[in-house]
C-alpha cells in the first residue's frame, strides 16, 4: 500500500478535447433524434486520454488495502482468500457473453452452474432447495422474510406480523424486518452472551411470524440451546430464520437445517470466498427446508430429465434474472476446488485460529465472555483503560502496522467492542505477528497513550472529520467546485 495520498479526481485530470476511447465508424447513416426529446445540456463528464485514466485508477488502488495485501480481522465479515482461479472462470467468454434472456437451449451450461450450486448449498446447509436470486446478504434476509410471510399468508394466518430478534443482532436483521412490513421484538441476551430462553418464552404467541438468529451469534458463541429455541418457536407456529453471515465455523461441524432452521441466507462473499469488491457485488442465496420450496421467488432453475429449465413458481420477485451470475460462478468454483474433504476443515481451522488469538491476548484485552468461541470473539477494549485509549484508537494504530482494523463498536452489548475473526486461510505466522502488534499497542496505551490516540501515522491520511462531512455534505464534484468558490 502506498502511504502517500494520491488524492486526485478524474475531473481534475480532464482537458477539453482529449478522448480516451475508440469506436467503429458509424456506418448506419445519420438519423435525427426529435428535438423535443433531446437533452439540453451535455453531461459534463471528464475528457481524458487512456493512459491518464489508467494511471489515475492504478494510483487510486494503491491507497487501498485488500485481503491480498494483509490480514483483515473483521468480525462477521469472513475476509478469506479470494482465489484467482475463481476470477479466471468468472470471466470466461462462454459465460460472460450470455444474454440472460437467451433461449434455454443456448444457455444449458449456465443453468447447470446455477442448479448445481443450489444443490451444493442445500447439502452444505441441510436444507432442501435454494434460490440464487438475491444480490447480497441483506437482500437475502429480505427474501427469506418474504418467503416466511408468504408461507403464513398462504395459510391465511394473517396475524403473524412480528419477528423476534436478539439484541446482539446485526443491524440488517431489524432493518430487513421493517422493509418486509414486520414488527421487531427484541429478546435479551444472558450474561454469557447467549439468547435468554426465559426472556424468550413470554414473547411467544400467535402473532410471531419468525425468529431471526445467527449461530454462532455475533459474539462468536454457539447458541447451544438452539434445539429448545427452535422447538419453542415452532410450537407457537413461527418459523426459524438463520442469518448465514456466521456460517464459516459450521462448515464441517453442523448444518443449520439440522439445528431446526427453516429458512436461511448464505453470504457467498463471506463463507464462499467471492471478493468483497470494496462493498459488493455480493450474493445472498436463500435456502428453505422441505415443504417450503413453492415459496421460493421467481425465476427459479429446475431440471427436467436431463435438461435445465427456468420456472416461475411464485409471484414474489426480488430481481430481474437469476442473481449475480458471475459471483455465483466464483462460489461454485470454490466449492469444486475445496471438495468435500477440505470444506469440512474450514470450520475447525477458522475456529482454532480465533480461540488461539483470544487465549494469547486475554491478559491485556478485556475478554467479557470466557470459554470456547467459534470463528470470532469480542474483546471489550483494553483491560487497562486508565489512560483513556479507546477501541477506536487501538483500531487506528493497527493500521500503522499493515493490518486492517477488526470490527469495532459492534455488537452493541459491549461499549468498547472489538470483534476479531481470523479466517482459516491465515497462517500461524500471520496470527502471531498480529498478536505481537496488539500486545505492543496495549503497552503503548500505557507508556505513550498520545501515540495511540493520534494514530494512524503511517496511512495516506490521518483521521477524518466526519462531523464536518455530515453537517456540510459535499457529495459531487460540482458541489466541491462550488464550495471552493
Amino acid at each position, binding site marked *: 500500500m502506498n502511504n502517500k495520498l494520491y488524492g486526485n479526481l478524474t475531473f481534475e485530470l480532464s482537458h477539453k478535447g482529449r478522448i480516451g476511447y475508440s469506436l*467503429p465508424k458509424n456506418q448506419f447513416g445519420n438519423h435525427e433524434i426529435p428535438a423535443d426529446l433531446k437533452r439540453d445540456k451535455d453531461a459534463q463528464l471528464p475528457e481524458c486520454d487512456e493512459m491518464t485514466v489508467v494511471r489515475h485508477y492504478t494510483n487510486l488502488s494503491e491507497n487501498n488495502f485488500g485481503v491480498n495485501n494483509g490480514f483483515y480481522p473483521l468480525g462477521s465479515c469472513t475476509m478469506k482468500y479470494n482465489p484467482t482461479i475463481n476470477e479466471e472462470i468468472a470471466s470466461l467468454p462462454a459465460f460472460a457473453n450470455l444474454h440472460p434472456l437467451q433461449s434455454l437451449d443456448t444457455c444449458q451450461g449456465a443453468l447447470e452452474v446455477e442448479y448445481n450450486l443450489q444443490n451444493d448449498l442445500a447439502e452444505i446447509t441441510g436444507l432442501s432447495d435454494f434460490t440464487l436470486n438475491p444480490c447480497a446478504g441483506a437482500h437475502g434476509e429480505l427474501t427469506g422474510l418474504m418467503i416466511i410471510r408468504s408461507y403464513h399468508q398462504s395459510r391465511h394466518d394473517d396475524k403473524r406480523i412480528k419477528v423476534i430478534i436478539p439484541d446482539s443482532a446485526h443491524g440488517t436483521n431489524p432493518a430487513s424486518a421493517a422493509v418486509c412490513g414486520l414488527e421487531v421484538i427484541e429478546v435479551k441476551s444472558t450474561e454469557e452472551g447467549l439468547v435468554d430462553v426465559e426472556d424468550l418464552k413470554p414473547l411467544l404467541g400467535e402473532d410471531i411470524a419468525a425468529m431471526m438468529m445467527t449461530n454462532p451469534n455475533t459474539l462468536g458463541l454457539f447458541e447451544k440451546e438452539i434445539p429448545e429455541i427452535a422447538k419453542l418457536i415452532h410450537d407457537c407456529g413461527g418459523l426459524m430464520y438463520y442469518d448465514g453471515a456466521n456460517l464459516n465455523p459450521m462448515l464441517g461441524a453442523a448444518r443449520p437445517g439440522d439445528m431446526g432452521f427453516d429458512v436461511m441466507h448464505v453470504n457467498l462473499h463471506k463463507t464462499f470466498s467471492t471478493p468483497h469488491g470494496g462493498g459488493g457485488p455480493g450474493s445472498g442465496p436463500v435456502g428453505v427446508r422441505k415443504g417450503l420450496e413453492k415459496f421460493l421467488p421467481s425465476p427459479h432453475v429446475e431440471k427436467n430429465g436431463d435438461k435445465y429449465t427456468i420456472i416461475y413458481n411464485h409471484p414474489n420477485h426480488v*430481481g430481474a434474472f437469476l442473481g449475480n451470475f458471475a459471483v455465483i460462478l466464483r462460489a461454485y468454483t470454490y466449492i469444486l476446488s475445496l471438495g468435500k474433504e477440505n470444506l469440512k476443515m474450514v470450520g475447525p481451522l477458522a475456529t482454532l485460529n480465533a480461540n488461539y488469538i483470544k487465549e494469547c491476548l486475554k491478559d491485556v484485552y478485556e475478554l467479557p465472555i470466557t470459554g470456547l468461541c467459534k470463528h470470532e470473539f469480542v474483546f471489550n477494549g483494553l483491560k487497562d483503560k486508565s489512560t483513556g485509549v479507546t477501541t477506536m484508537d487501538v483500531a487506528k494504530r493497527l493500521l500503522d502496522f499493515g493490518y486492517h482494523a477488526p470490527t469495532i463498536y459492534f455488537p452493541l452489548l459491549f461499549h468498547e467492542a472489538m470483534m476479531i475473526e481470523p479466517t482459516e486461510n491465515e497462517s500461524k505466522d500471520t496470527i502471531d505477528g498480529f498478536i505481537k502488534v496488539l500486545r505492543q499497542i496495549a503497552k503503548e496505551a500505557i507508556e505513550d497513550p498520545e501515540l495511540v490516540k493520534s494514530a494512524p501515522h503511517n496511512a495516506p491520511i490521518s483521521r477524518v472529520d466526519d462531523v464536518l462531512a455530515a453537517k456540510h455534505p459535499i457529495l459531487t464534484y460540482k458541489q466541491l467546485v462550488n464550495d471552493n468558490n
Partner: protein
Amino acid sequence: MTYKYFPHTDEDIKEMLAKTGVDSLEDLYAEVPESIKLKRDYQLPEALSEVEIRQLFDKIGKKNHQLTCFAGAGVYDHYTPSVIPALVERSEFLTSYTPYQAEISQGTLHYIFEYQSMMTELTGMEISNASLYDGTTATAEAVLMAKASAKKANKVLISSTIDPKTLAVVKTYAHFHGVELEMIKAKDGITDKEDLQKKIVGNAIAGVVVQQPNRYGIVENYVGFADLCHEQKALFIMNSVPADLALLKTPGELGADIAVGDGQSLGIPMNFGGPYVGYMCCTEKLMRKMPGRIVGKTLDKKGQRAFVLTLQAREQHIRRQKATSNICSNESLMALWVTIYMSLMGKNGIKEAAQISYDGAHYLYDGLLKTGRFEAAFNQPFFNEFCIKYNGDVDQLLKRLEENDILGGIKVTEDTVMMAVTEKRTKEEVDHLISLCHE
C-alpha cells in the same frame, strides 16, 4: 492434511490446540449438542485441481452458445473497453472491504465520489448514492422512499409501460411493505397522460413511476409529468437507461425527484444477468431519505482533502428497524466499472456510442420494413430498441436466427418482436440479420 488454501501444519495445530486448552479440533465444538453435530462427510465430490477445474468449465462452457446479440429488454451488448477489467481486477479494489476505515480506503472512497458525480451529470440530478443492487430493486427502493417522504399518502401510481420485470419486483416489495400500487394505462404504447391525470388529481398519491425508454423501446415525452405530480404533492420517479441519457432529455431536465435505473448499459458485460449496478439520484431535498451508502468530502486532521462515508445515520447499522432500507453491501466494484467507463468514454464518447446505437437501430428498422415482411407495431419514436410486427411465426423466426448464431430479439407477442442495436453491431451483421428475416 495439506491443502493449498490451508497454511496450518500438524505442528502449528498442535501448538495452537495446546494454547487453547483442548486436545483436538473436534473438542473445539464440545458445546454443540450431539444431536445436531454433523457426523458424516458432505455428499459432494472430492476436490478438483486447477487443471481439472479448467477442463470442467471448458466442457460446461461448450453447452452455452455465444450469439450475435440483437436482444435488449434492459440488458444491452455495449462495448466494454479493455482497460476496465484490467483495472477492476487489481486486488486492492477487488479484495478490499467496505471503506469504513477511511484512512486506508481513500482509493475506494475517491472512485465512489467520482461515480456519484458522474451519475448526477448523466441524470441531471443533484445528488447520487453509492449504488444499489440493480435497476429493479432501485425502483422498488424509490417507491418505498416515496411512501416514507409522503406525510399521509400511501399509494404510488406506476405506468403500464415499465418493464414487467421491474414491475414484478416493485409489486413484491410494495406488497410486503404495505404500499398500494395502481397502474396507469398505456395508449398506443405510451403512458396515457389523461389516465394519470384522472388517477392523481384529488387523490393522496405519494409518487408516480415511469420508464425511459419504456418497455417497448419507445422514447416517451414526459414534459409536464413532473408539474402534474408536484401540484398533487407526489414525487415524480423516472427509471432510465443511463447510456441513452447521453442524448435524451434527462430526469433532472424533466423535473424528476428521483432517478433510478440499471447501469449495465455503461459497459458492463451481459454476464447472464449479473452483477450489474443499480443507481439512484435525487434532489437535495430528499438527500436524507435516500437509501444506500453516500460518500462525502471532508478534511483529515492535517487539513488534507479526503473522502468518507457520510450521512450514515440513515443506514441500517445505526437506524436498525427505523432505517428506510436494509441495504448493506451494494455493487461497489460495478460502480467502479462504470466510473472507469465514463472516465474513458467521457463527455463525447458516451454521445458517440449512443448515436451509433440509435442510428443502427433505425437502419435495422427501415431495412426490416423494406423486406415487406414487417410493419410498424407502434407509431412512436424509439431509441436503440424497437418493437416490430412480423407477418409470420415469431418463434420460428427467432429459432432460425438462433441456428445462424444470432439472438434475434425478444418475443413480445405472437406477432411482435423487440430488437436492439448497439455500437458493437457492424453493418454486415445488421444486413445479414435483415436478409435472414427476409427468407
